[in-house]
């Protein structure tokens, strides 16, 4: 549970720091007309961006707890037999890294308003993510062929659960990606700022899922 506690501790530290900033030196009981010292403290970020970051906090909490459960269960009753990670996973990791790189390029094109250079990296980025999911399914199939079923050993069970949950989050990202693509492709009456937000949010989410995958993959390799 230590990992989860550290994660929550850091979130709470951020909340406390932010609250200290808000609450020190304010006298809530004093009424003030506008423009005379009323602190305009609201974030300048768009709501969707804040929404995504809050959501990433929720997903981080989920994966932290899974890592905690993983380490507690591993230290359990000595029945933990590590499973051989199929080499295919390295390829998949490569695909996911590339996918993130292409999303970043799409994001850069969008922020520079180069709309004609936006579509192809966006499409390639999404296609690579789909390839990643297919690759993960293939890895499941390989493990199954070798007889590593989920019920055989806790290490196997965690492997399937972790990759499955990560894959589901990737699929959710692809739904958002599809909407971004539809916005880019339709072109007619397209609102440039909508496209930019849409691509930016996708990119953030892609990087986040890559980071989560690297942590989880590293954890599974190390144990």
């Amino acid at each position: 549970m230590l990992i989860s506690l550290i994660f929550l501790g850091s979130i709470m530290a951020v909340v406390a720091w932010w609250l200290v900033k808000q609450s020190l030196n304010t006298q809530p009981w004093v009424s003030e007309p506008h423009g005379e010292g009323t602190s305009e403290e609201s974030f300048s970020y768009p709501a969707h961006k804040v929404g995504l970051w809050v959501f990433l906090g929720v997903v981080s909490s989920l994966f932290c707890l899974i890592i905690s459960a993983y380490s507690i269960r591993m230290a359990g009753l000595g029945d933990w037999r590590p499973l051989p990670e199929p080499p295919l996973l390295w390829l998949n990791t490569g695909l996911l890294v590339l996918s993130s790189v292409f999303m970043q390029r799409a994001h850069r094109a969008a922020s520079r308003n180069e709309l004609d250079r936006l579509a192809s990296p966006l499409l390639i980025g999404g296609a690579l993510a789909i390839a990643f999911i297919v690759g993960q399914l293939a890895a499941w199939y390989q493990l199954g062929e070798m007889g590593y079923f989920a019920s055989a050993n806790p290490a196997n069970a965690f492997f399937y659960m972790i990759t499955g949950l990560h894959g589901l989050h990737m699929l959710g990202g692809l739904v958002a990606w599809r909407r971004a693509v539809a916005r880019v492709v339709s072109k007619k009456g397209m609102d440039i700022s909508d496209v930019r937000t849409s691509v930016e949010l996708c990119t953030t989410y892609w990087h986040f899922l890559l980071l989560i995958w690297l942590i989880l993959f590293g954890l599974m390799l190390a144990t």
Partner: protein
Amino acid sequence: MSSVTHDETTFVPAAETGEMELYHAKTWLGKYVFCQDAKVIAVQYAATAIGIGLVALVLSMMMRLQLGFPGALAFITPEVYMQMVTMHGMIMVIYLLTALFLGGFGNFLIPLMVGARDMVFPWANMLSFWIYFVAVLILVASFFVPGGPTGSGWTLYPPQSILPGTPGSEWGIILMLVSLALFIVGFTMGGLNYVVTVLQARARGMTLMRMPLTIWGIFMATVLALLAFPALLVSVIMMLLDQTIGTSFFMPAIAAMGAEHDYDGGSPILFQHLFWFFGHPEVYIVALPAFGIVSDLISVHARKNIFGYRMMVWAIVVIGALSFVVWAHHMYVSGMNPYFGFFFATTTLIIAVPTALKVYNWVLTLWRGNIHLTVPMLFAIGFVFTFINGGLTGLFLGNAAVDVPLSDTYFVIAHFHMVMGVSPILVVFGAIYHWYPKVTGRMLNEPLGKLHFWFTFLGTYAIYFPMHYLGFLGMPRRYYTSGGTDFIPDSAHALNTQISIAAFIVGAAQLLILVNIVWSYYKGKESGGNPWKATTLEWQTPTTPAGHGNFGPELPLVYRWAYDYSVPGAKEDFIPQNVPPRDEPATQGE
């Protein structure tokens, strides 16, 4: 106030977030069923939560019937009794209280109180309710599957929850787990809305430190829920895998009912850690909105500013943070290391500090206030009493050494029903009596409301106070019947019968509020826009009930905090948050 109408020149253009594009329903279905207006979603959430809550109430009545008059209903076998215990607990904690405070009051009050037109993601908000609704349907469906609902207790502890011999270990538990997973997904969508709306969509001038404490309570509870529900989700997924495909996350090697199972090496304690890592913050997910709402009720109806506003905000945040490091006090009897228990006993007792601080501040707000004993105020004061009572028994159970003999007795039932059953429900009632006029434009009937209060308040004490005594006698909880045991004296059985009779009276008294809600909707006294003379923004809307978009053409501008009651020198005893300072009499020495 000389003029509550605004001088047009005081309007500063451009709200902080700009105007949002409002969703306009084109069809009947879009307007009343798949509606994206937070106020309608709030009513949908509240109605569903209260509906399923009534099911749980009926279950508790049947349990009390069995306990007070064993064998009165022939169909209540030990298995059925355990199923009732389980469903009663789970429904009350998650599907009623969590959904009602956050989905119901959160949806209604957040946009209105912070001065927003709606939630920031209305579509996700609508989806949130419908996923919750499906989760409730799945939960109800488990009453009708072969084997019935799960009977493993609301904590769903493995291994017994998925082993044959426990009622509902085949279908009931699966439906329960699926329903919980859906609830969490639905809640996450709503929760993102509540957090981002509070952060991003406040009216101009509504600084964080001017927000009403209701919003602070709901906001912090949502943050807790967003961080804690994943723990439940993880344990739900892992148990679902254990049950369906035979993994061994939680299941040790076990032989049960004469049969060996394929499980091996899993850790039931791991489940307990995950479950209570969610389960303890859950207590505060329910309690923090109640704290916030009760602060506002007391302030409004005592016509006095809340005592120590900043302290109250900090207490909410500190309680929220501490609630993540106390979870193992639910597991003192799980065989944990005593040093571990010492740590958790310490953190548990530390949490009493900010909590006691809040209680002092409520009492100090009442001190020399102009107390109006309206129905919401009665419920608010009733809450303070009950919360102190429940909190004091928490000191007993928080100490590992005292907890061990009291664990799994009626003392525990008395403690948590006082502190997280009765207390929040009193606030729910108070809040319904307080905000019903804003939802419908009519007042709830006051004599009926007072009758409802006294039956509920005194009745719950008649139910739960004797249970402390039964607990000291060592009467075990979750037992279907207590007959034929030597250490339980006859007086305890008599007490048990008396508790059941009190429970029936309290249960029947809840009809009063249901009748009141329906009757007042048609025949209640017209309330006008601001019947309680309150300062917060929801009472300043141009129409009551508030129209689509809440605030008419201009969003309100906020000049002051929510607690300007009985300001010296002001003509009336309240100054709404959107009244500029220049409209105040000049004699005022602020």
